[in-house]
């Protein structure tokens, strides 16, 4: 126990300031009213669906929960059930084998809800593109509010995308 406490004290607080929202990430019109966004913004629950990524984006989503970015410290957390979620985060080109699962997960998230497409594959199909096995970008399958490009997007860009989704357009 002594070693653990000593290490915690030695480590100190690593968390860095959160980035600001970025309007260029918005994919279309802001659909939700400012009042709703203000409520969601204080405690946002995210459901992730990997719809066909290479797992690179997932590595960076894990990283936003490390001590440096500490996404949960902003009141934003990942949840297991879509029923508990306010925001659907989607990675990957949408494989045709995941198309139905993605649509059903979205349908299980109560309104009002937001969708963020994360990574180059989710934004534009990436290196995998459209094929017999792939539907391409996420907006080919479900409506998208915010897109975050990058292969994979860095943790700060991911946080920026999520914060943009829950911030009202200035």
């Amino acid at each position: 126990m002594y070693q653990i406490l000593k290490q915690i004290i030695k480590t100190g607080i690593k968390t860095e300031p959160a980035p600001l929202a970025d309007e260029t990430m918005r994919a279309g019109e802001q659909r939700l009213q400012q009042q709703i966004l203000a409520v969601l913004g204080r405690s946002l629950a995210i459901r992730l669906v990997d719809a066909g990524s290479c797992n690179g984006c997932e590595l960076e989503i894990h990283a936003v929960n490390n001590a440096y970015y500490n996404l949960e410290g902003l009141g934003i957390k990942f949840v297991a059930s879509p029923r508990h979620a306010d925001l659907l985060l989607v990675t990957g080109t949408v494989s045709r084998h995941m198309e139905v699962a993605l649509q059903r997960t979205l349908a299980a998230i109560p309104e009002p809800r937001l969708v963020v497409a994360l990574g180059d594959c989710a934004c534009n199909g990436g290196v995998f593109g459209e094929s017999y096995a792939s539907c391409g970008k996420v907006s080919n399958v479900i409506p998208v509010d915010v897109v975050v490009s990058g292969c994979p997007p860095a943790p700060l860009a991911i946080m920026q995308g999520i914060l943009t989704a829950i911030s009202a357009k200035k």
Partner: protein
Amino acid sequence: MNSLNLAWIPLPGAIPARQATLEAAQLQPLCRKVADDGGRLLALWGSDEGAGIFALHVALVNQDGLLCLHLLLAQESPVYPDISQIFPCACRMQRTVYDMLGVAAAGSADQRPWLRHAAWPVDSFPLRKDFDAAISQEADDYPFVQVEGQGVHEIPVGPVHAGIIEPGHFRFSIIGERVLRLEERLGYVHKGIEKRFENNSLFFGAKLAGRVSGDSTTAYAWAYAMAAENMACVTPPERALWLRALFLERERIANHLGDLGYLANDVAFSFGMSQFWILKEQLLRNNAALFGHRYLMDKIIPGGVAVDLPDADTLLAECDLLEHEVRLLRSILEEHAGVQDRYIGAGTVEPKLASQLGLCGLAGRASAQAWDARVQFPCVPYQTLEVRMATHRNGDVAARVIVRFEELFESIRLQREILAGLPAGDLLEALTDLPGNGFGLGMVEGWRGEVLVAMHTDAAGNISRVYPHDPSWQNWPLLEHAILGNIVPDFPLINKSFNLSYSGHDL
């Protein structure tokens, strides 16, 4: 093997490898011989050779090197002898060859589809050259094996899992909390990678190979580059090969740090999670600062590497920090009774079963399967570095954790050696054209196990087929065994101790 009268042709490259074209009747005896001598199946894939000919390719490995077998099949009767009786891990690969190419293993007990769900029709085969990408509307109805008996019930999990993980389906048959049977169903992230390689450029292919499984991007990029270089008989400059090894060991360290964090988290020891992920983040930031990418994607290219090492001091300081901190964290984990209680005896794969079913890589070494391509077939710079292989006999979560720690320390040592011995010179040897009707193999010991890439070209030297093989193919079936008799709440822990790839498997 000589009694089979095969004309072996050596394949160029740093790893000893030879190939032979054989008759259907020779396949089973040859595989049996290799298996009896302690050899393993590495990969099995098919290709459309045009003019009504299909080919089956089988890569085996024994202590002498790689053996690559080619079997030509006429379109009228595209069947070959089943080898899953000899190498059980061939079963899913054979089912996939049927899904993708319509070439079947005669006499195989399991003829269910594997990677094909409902995206394309049953009589349509994506890797045939005349495939027309017809969209199927059929319902997805997979016949899982049913377990019956008083009190037995099923828990279906996935494809969308509860955490931040890739998609796949697990069907647990349980009694009380104890698992009687687990059946996996994969293929959800099949996005047509193999087809995408066809007729694309060598350099687009390198990007694609680096995205077969994002956590193993350097292993795939290196294996892909090696396949092309071997085919074209091009040797990258020494400095480039040393830098590749540096990248590969950094990938191993990053993944082991991340997984050790999650293995602590999965037994509710969140201190471990925070600490290991702080270290991983520092390593990723050094990657970004020195090489321009946190995961080193696209830094290994055919012919060499795309980036040089600007200075060694940052990495040497990182080595010291990692070694000190990981040593401390290891002693904390080892002295924590609650953590060890969950690790020891969970998800055991006995060495005998591991050997029969072909468990490989990190998980294999934790079950006494002493295979590591860096040790058995060391190419530059591993010949100089003399990698010390980490193994264990217990085959449980605790053993896989111990092997990870030992590999982590060994990779830190290797990183120091590489920084000390890095030769001067160029980063790239020109490689633009591939020979016609060529075949090349590349194999790299990634953090999860050996990654194999096979590359075929057509008469004009265009890429006609690339097959990237992930060690997860071998190891997924063992997870079904590892969970038996354990309780359902231990599944996430056992699963994470293997941490297999979905994308690398589903392609």
